[in-house]
């Protein structure tokens, strides 16, 4: 089984986000960059499939030089090889990212492509399904369980208020959802080994894919209205406090 994993480096979810001076991006100073949590699940699932069925795991990422850290993490977890598409300072929207990734994936012969269902920075939910579309293969999103047999993959995916079990033919793309697995931690031997594994760097201009002009442009970014410290409800007993709370909810905010 030849497996490709798409991954993105994002600010850790613990990060406090501030808006940059130009008002269209976040401040990047002091941000701790990590592998997108859903992509960690993608790497983990790929490794488990490879270890059971044989084959290789290749991780792909598109981004600047520092993206190497996320790729090294994937290699330390156990991925075999890594490809970084150097964006050369070009800002790509979700669609352009998908086009370029699909172009590179087509150069290989992958049975299964795994991606996170969204990156927790842009929250676009777009790249995985769009890559599948550009490759002309089926995709199943938000997978919490999967198994393959006889050239098919059967997945349990979450939907609003339930789950579906879907089956499709390989090659296919799936996106991960929490619950699929618990990504492993990198071990010291794994980290040492990863240092020796190659990272194939390809310049965007040499990929042969024209990402096209960006069609989605962020023109303004702001923090949502911030809550000030709440009013602490005092009282002699839990019952007193509860009564005061319910009164406030009913009379002041009219939410109940």
């Amino acid at each position: 089984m030849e497996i490709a994993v798409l991954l993105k480096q994002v600010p850790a979810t613990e990060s406090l986000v501030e808006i940059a001076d130009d008002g269209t991006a976040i401040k990047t100073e002091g941000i701790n960059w990590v592998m997108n949590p859903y992509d960690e699940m993608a790497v983990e699932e790929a490794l488990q499939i490879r270890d059971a069925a044989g084959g290789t795991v290749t991780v792909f990422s598109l981004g600047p030089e520092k993206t190497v850290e996320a790729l090294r993490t994937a290699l330390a977890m156990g991925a075999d090889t890594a490809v970084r598409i150097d964006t050369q300072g070009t800002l790509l929207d979700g669609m352009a990212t998908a086009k370029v990734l699909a172009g590179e994936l087509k150069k290989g012969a992958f049975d299964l492509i795994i991606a996170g269902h969204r990156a927790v920075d842009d929250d676009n939910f777009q790249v995985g399904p769009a890559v599948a579309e550009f490759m002309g293969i089926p995709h199943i999103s938000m997978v919490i369980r999967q198994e393959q047999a006889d050239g098919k993959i059967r997945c349990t995916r979450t939907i609003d208020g339930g789950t579906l079990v879907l089956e499709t033919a390989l090659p296919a793309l799936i996106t991960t959802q929490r619950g699929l697995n618990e990504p492993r931690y990198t071990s010291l031997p794994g980290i040492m080994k990863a240092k020796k594994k190659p990272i194939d760097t390809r310049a965007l201009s040499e990929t042969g894919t024209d990402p096209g002009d960006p069609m989605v442009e962020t023109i303004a970014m702001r923090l949502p209205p911030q809550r000030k410290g709440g009013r602490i409800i005092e009282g002699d007993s839990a019952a007193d406090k509860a009564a005061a709370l319910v009164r406030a909810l009913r009379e002041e905010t009219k939410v109940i």
Partner: protein
Amino acid sequence: MSQGILAITEQVDGSFKNISFEVISTGKKIAEKTGGPLTAAVMGAGVDAIARQAAEYGADRILVADHEGLKDGLSDACIQAAAQLMAHVDPAVVVIGATSSGKDIAARLSARLNAPLAMDCVDVRVDGDRVVATRPMYGGKVLADVSLSGFPAIVAIRPRAMEAVAAQGAGEVEKVDIRLDGTTLNLVEKHLETGKIELTEADVVVTGGRGMGGDDFTVVEALAKALGAAVGASRSAVDEGWRPVSDQVGQTGKVVAPNLYIACGVSGAIQHLAGMASSRVVVAINKDPEAPIFAKCDFGIVGDLFDVVPAVTAEIEKLKG
């Protein structure tokens, strides 16, 4: 340039989902700026009867793709049908719900049509010849305005973010023959949790955190029941295995925006606060007066949740008589 708007609807169990009316109303708002017309797309099997409801929210035309292959609402069939319906309308803007299925359709449709997409929007406006959408990023820590260039502009709207407004439209049901070729997804099994209120659609959410101390969520569930609320959980409660991952509220879980959010024994980690920041009124109950959640709530009670939450439940029940 086309001025038309296409609103793609979605059903569950033979009825329109609420998001469908929100989608049509959002389409109506945009159509008033572009000069319309507003077309509603209905896809499914045996959906003629409900389709005319789209006119009650202002649809000028109602296109129906009625096909056995659409009965399960699987994304690959719906994408094919949507693309064919679109050819009848040539819309400037496509509005769809950012539901689990809508997101799949929107993402693939944008790639197929080479059309710009704004996902999970909480507001949409027309600015000159551009559609500008407001969407949360970083799990809700940030609100971004994105400008879409190219046609059709696809806007997937977050459930509950836009209002469904009744408005009489002239739309009559027009059936459109569609062909489904080579769909590859097969439905093996469907499991819907009956009677469970979906977190992202709930008016009230009651969440339990690490302070629950274990998987016994009885006090939280009782309060949720009294309020007709959905039950959520913090990441720590999910990581501990006390609640399923589908209950998780936060940057790596669900983003919720209820009228009332009650956090019980939740400390208020940044990634959790991001997931509930758009709630209208936030109540925090925690025994640690220093918990960060108290800085991000409207009302706080410092106390043991196992005393306070049942007392609140009792007050709510008293109210209801």
